[in-house]
């Protein structure tokens, strides 16, 4: 536990020691505002809700999360620090969990910094703050899903560009797997059962439930098991790289 926290702390120090953290948070806040007000027609809808704000989160994460995760292992491999880190008396699981937790906390910070949005809708009207809270939780959970995929991909290569592109692609597939464009492709030959399974893997579908204010147990299980699956794959890849 202590070691896991030390890893988390070290990672966070590194985020803020470089401009990466500040650039990420600034861009995240700018884009989320831009999308909400311009593309989401925040004012035209005329409702005191953050629906048009949360709606864009999957698409923001799709590009911004791989930008955080691409360096997490790739850079350690390139600079050789992976040799230093993985020969310390600490388990691979603790390292992976520590790295993930730092990235997740960092995303949480970016999310928390969107609080002016929440103040704005509360100033303009009387939104359902329960739904807003649930949406924040949903968005946070979903970001964990994107992060765990991104970190795993980063452990497979020492090239950050490759890590980024592959992560975006895989995250994209997970995001849109519930959309008709993907499902039509499968339903023509894969049968209904498989199509349903693929649909249930969709980030969008799971996220839209939660952002309506319903924290479904299945959604919770979905995101958490997805996170653990990819973190577990990450541990396995690292342990296997010894051979």
């Amino acid at each position, binding site marked *: 536990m202590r070691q896991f926290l030390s890893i988390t702390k070290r990672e966070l120090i590194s985020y803020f020691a470089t401009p990466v953290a500040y650039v990420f948070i600034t861009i995240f806040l700018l884009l989320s505002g831009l999308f909400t007000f311009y593309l989401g027609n925040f004012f035209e809808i005329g409702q005191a809700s953050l629906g048009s704000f949360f709606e864009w989160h999957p698409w923001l994460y799709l590009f911004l999360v791989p930008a955080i995760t691409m360096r997490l292992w790739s850079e350690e491999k390139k600079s*050789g620090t992976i040799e*230093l880190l993985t020969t310390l008396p600490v388990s691979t699981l603790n390292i992976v969990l520590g790295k993930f937790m730092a990235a997740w906390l960092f995303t949480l910070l970016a999310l928390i910094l969107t609080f002016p949005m929440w103040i704005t809708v509360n100033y303009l009207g009387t939104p359902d703050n329960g739904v807003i809270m649930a949406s924040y939780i949903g968005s946070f959970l979903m970001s964990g899903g994107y992060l765990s995929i991104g970190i795993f991909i980063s452990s497979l290569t020492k090239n950050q560009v490759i890590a980024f592109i592959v992560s975006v692609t895989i995250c994209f597939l997970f995001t849109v797997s519930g959309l008709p464009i993907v499902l039509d492709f499968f339903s023509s030959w894969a049968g209904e059962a498989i199509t349903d399974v693929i649909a249930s893997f969709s980030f969008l579908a799971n996220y839209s439930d939660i952002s309506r204010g319903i924290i479904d147990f299945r959604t919770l299980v979905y995101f958490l098991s997805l996170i653990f699956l990819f973190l577990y794959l990450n541990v396995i890849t690292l342990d296997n790289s010894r051979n």
Partner: protein
Amino acid sequence: MTALVEVNNISKSFESFLAVDDINFSLEKGEVLGFLGPNGAGKTTTMRILTGFLKPSSGSIKINGLDLFKNLKKAREFIGYVPEGSPLYNEMTTIDFLSFICEIRNIDKGQNLSKIIKLLDLDEVLLQKIDTLSKGFKRRVGLAQALVHDPKILILDEPTDGLDPNQKHEVRKLIKKLGKEKSIIISTHILEEVKAICNRTMILSNGKLLIDDTPTNVLKKSSSYNNLLVSVHDKSANELKKELQTLKSFKYIDVNNNLCSIKLKSTTDASFLSNYLLKKKYAIKHYSINKGQLDEVFRQLTNTE
């Protein structure tokens, strides 16, 4: 006394390439072992296996009596390791980085850390980011990282690579000092380094262990070992060579760099020659006996062309 490091028949292959081929040795406290070998000989791979960064394809390793791969975490507590190129988290400050290592190793930051900071003279750079440090300081931070837990075994992959002569001297002095209390393995291709700090040498080539002996014994395998080098003011080296050849049938006598070089087979050879030169009242310009050259042995053994 049990050996601190025990290596039993380890081999490591990467696909079809055999990087380490059946290496065996054990190391005790007070031994400073120098790995010598050309690039690609398997030095780094062997060190990576000893620290558990890589698993051997076959064979086993015991660290302080513990099977390394069955007790990876525990065994690593006995090891301090500076990987090739001494990689560090460049974006961190020296003190943040060393504190992190202490936390992971579960070491009391106060006492141990300040001792190491003093030992390696890092006071002035504690608050500086590592990527702004000079190469010498980076190496010292790398060594500090490997020493905070006062390990019994120290594994250093080319610890003086890229340092200037003064810094090299400092690092060697430190390793020599630490070597009394620990087992140290260093790899290098600087041969003088081995002579200066090691009391045991291994020469590796193509993954095979060719020699495992003290540096002095390794030197005896040098072809120029025990060659008498002599020159006089009265005669040219070639003339001297001809004169000496008439005295006795020396197995080997030659001229190199204006010095007459004679292989001595016994101590009587040496006294015979010195007596002769004195009797002739030659004005001696140069007179020395070659102790052997490590780079010669190195080339003899590892030159496969």
